[in-house]
């Protein structure tokens, strides 16, 4: 029996889809059979992030309405052989899927997959309710910004209200240099405020944008810092303890410049 995890954030643009896709790919790389569900009805995204947009035939609403079988709608990843995508529908009516139907779908999927990862849409409306309905665990993504952390706090509350256990936090777009300069909240600042467990810290990385351009995931690149950070997230999901990347360590020159800037 697999585990159903929802990746959510409240605020848009903080990296839910990036996190869900890299996590899914990393788990698949580790031998698990993984299904990624794009729960953003009307704004399908996960297919382009994975570079699978040309292979989508059926979508989640077709499965729910019985127009096709689940296996017909699942798109197999090009690179990760154990990774599958269930695409969102590009229809306007978000109400076409109910939380009960999502719950039923997740129950069927977790019989076949080791992990079912749901990419939740931004906001707290129907899309959020659908995405959380069948989930057993939640991961909240935030960035070190006031607006994102505020929304993360709200979402942590809503996740608890759904009856899910306390979510784990992924802090995305982290910039160690800015933290050292006092211009970005630190990991401790954020954890202090949100009081949830940390699952990962993903440094800001241009390679994520490059990967999004070509439809390739950064986790494929083991040499990239963000790819390594996602690999660590995957290990922690597996239950292994992995130290956090030393992002805040400053080099000699930045220490020196700090000394001078104090005067």
């Amino acid at each position, binding site marked *: 029996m697999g585990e159903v995890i929802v990746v959510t954030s409240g605020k848009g643009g903080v990296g839910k889809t990036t996190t869900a896709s890299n996590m899914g790919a990393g788990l698949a790389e580790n031998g698990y059979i993984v299904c990624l569900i794009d729960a953003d009805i009307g704004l399908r995204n996960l297919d382009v992030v994975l570079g699978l947009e040309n292979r989508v035939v059926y979508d989640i609403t077709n499965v729910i309405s019985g127009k096709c079988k689940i296996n017909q709608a699942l798109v197999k990843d090009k690179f990760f052989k154990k990774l599958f995508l269930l695409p969102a529908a590009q229809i306007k009516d978000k109400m076409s899927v109910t939380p009960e139907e999502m719950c039923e779908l997740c129950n069927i999927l977790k019989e076949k997959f080791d992990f079912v990862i749901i990419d939740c849409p931004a906001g707290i409306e129907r899309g959020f309710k659908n995405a959380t309905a069948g989930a057993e665990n939640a991961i909240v993504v935030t960035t070190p*910004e*006031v607006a994102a*952390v*505020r929304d993360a*706090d*709200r979402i942590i*509350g809503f996740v*608890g*209200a759904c009856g899910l256990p*306390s979510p784990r936090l992924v802090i995305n777009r982290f910039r160690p240099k*800015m*933290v050292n*300069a*006092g*211009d*970005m*909240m*630190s990991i401790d*600042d954020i954890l202090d*405020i949100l009081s949830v467990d940390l699952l990962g810290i993903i440094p800001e990385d241009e390679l994520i944008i490059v990967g999004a351009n070509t439809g390739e995931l950064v986790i494929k690149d083991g040499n990239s810092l963000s790819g390594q950070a996602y690999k660590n997230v995957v290990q922690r999901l597996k239950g292994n303890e992995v130290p956090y990347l030393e992002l805040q360590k400053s080099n000699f020159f930045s220490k020196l410049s700090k000394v001078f800037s104090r005067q």
Partner: protein
Amino acid sequence: MFKFPCKNSTSSSVAKERLRFVLLSDRTSINPELLYDLENDFIKVISKYMEIDENLLELNINKDAGNVMLKANLPVKRVKTY
């Protein structure tokens, strides 16, 4: 004791303070002014029975598993006797 003037004006510390404020308000739907009044009333009521250190008084709102909890730390100097 001599204290260095606290230069606590990095933009990240401002961010943290703003966040604390906005979350306190979000979590409780109580506006900050009301929270201030509450603190003062607390002092009034408790002071009827015991002498408390007002400078060390702390009022906090904590959220735990969907429940909101108001926590007041009221350091007691002396219990009044009648």
